[in-house]
């Protein structure tokens, strides 16, 4: 289950989220991310309880796209968030 990392700060600004990972070196300071409407929707659904598939289902319903398209978009976005350490993955018990 994806959940927000405790080493990232997020803020909604005029309807869109920005994400700022904490840093431990000067070279990392400019790593900051603007999320578009879809990214903001997915980010807000990440709560440590829903799976990626469940979030993709919500995405498909909200934006009226196919389940396959929503899953592909969601999987790609979660992978990007994982890469920049904005989320952690917890194994469901």
């Amino acid at each position, binding site marked *: 289950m994806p959940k927000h990392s405790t080493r990232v700060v997020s803020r909604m*600004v005029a309807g*869109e989220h*920005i994400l*700022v990972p904490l840093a431990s*070196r000067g070279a990392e300071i400019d790593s900051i991310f603007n999320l578009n409407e879809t990214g903001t929707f997915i980010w807000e659904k990440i709560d440590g309880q829903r799976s990626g598939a469940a979030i993709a289902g919500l995405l498909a319903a909200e934006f009226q796209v196919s389940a396959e398209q929503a899953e592909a978009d969601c999987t790609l976005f979660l992978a990007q968030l994982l890469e920049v350490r904005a989320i952690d993955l917890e194994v469901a018990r």
Partner: protein
Amino acid sequence: MKRSPTGFVNRLRVGPTVLAASAESRAAVAWPRRFGPFLCARGGDLEVRVRREAIPPLGNLLFESEGVWRAYAQPEDRLLLTFRVGRRIYKAALLDPDRRRGEIYFPRASRGSAAPRSALQFPLDEMLFQHRWAKDGLLEIHSCGVKDRGGVLLFTGHSGAGKSTLAKIWHAQAPSSPILSDDRVLLDPRALSGVRAFGTPWHGTGRFGSRSEGRLSALFFLEQAEATEAIRLHPAEAAARLFTRSFPPIWDLEATERVVNACGDVAERVPAFLLRFRKDGSAIDAARRAAAVA
């Protein structure tokens, strides 16, 4: 500078914040002569004492600036900032959890050493303010600020973006518009009446730094170009750009949240533009037009 029972006290006011630094010797708490307009006689939102003692044990490394300073964790949420000349740490500041009180450890230099005489030498003086401001949700921005037509226009950019160039152009073409700074401007978004902008003593190559202040009326992110144009930015884009031009203690979750929120607050309340500009007076006209229309 005032004499005190234990030596000397020197006070620097930047925006709403006063730093009071004390030491046994006058030289240890001296600021450069050009800081004169920012010196004051009273107050102490931040108080530091210079000690001619050895640097304390470092603790766990929190942040490596890849420049002259590092930050280390200390017990009870205190913070140790160290400063190096070459590989040698020549001074360190130990700050309390609120970043309101601190000790500066400044061992006497050996004869012939290149170490400075004042413990407050840049960047420590500025960093003491930055850590306090981050706790209060104030933003110091790498920027040039100009007071113009009743408001402050802020031109932000990294080194080489054209802040000092623009300040010189503005000063030449509109000398009645005070320049707050050509490198560092403080923003205070806490008041309901608007975002306040304050000049600082830390200047760029144009050497502009004044105690002027005013209400922020527009933000511009600088890019030098062949033709001048101002393009409106979405507030989220502006907030992200503003954050990368601020000086947050980015290893500290709580302080970073305050800085990010301050960036968001400023970006939601003040119109922001990408300003592509040619090195002539056209930037002044474009900025004034954009601010007036917004």
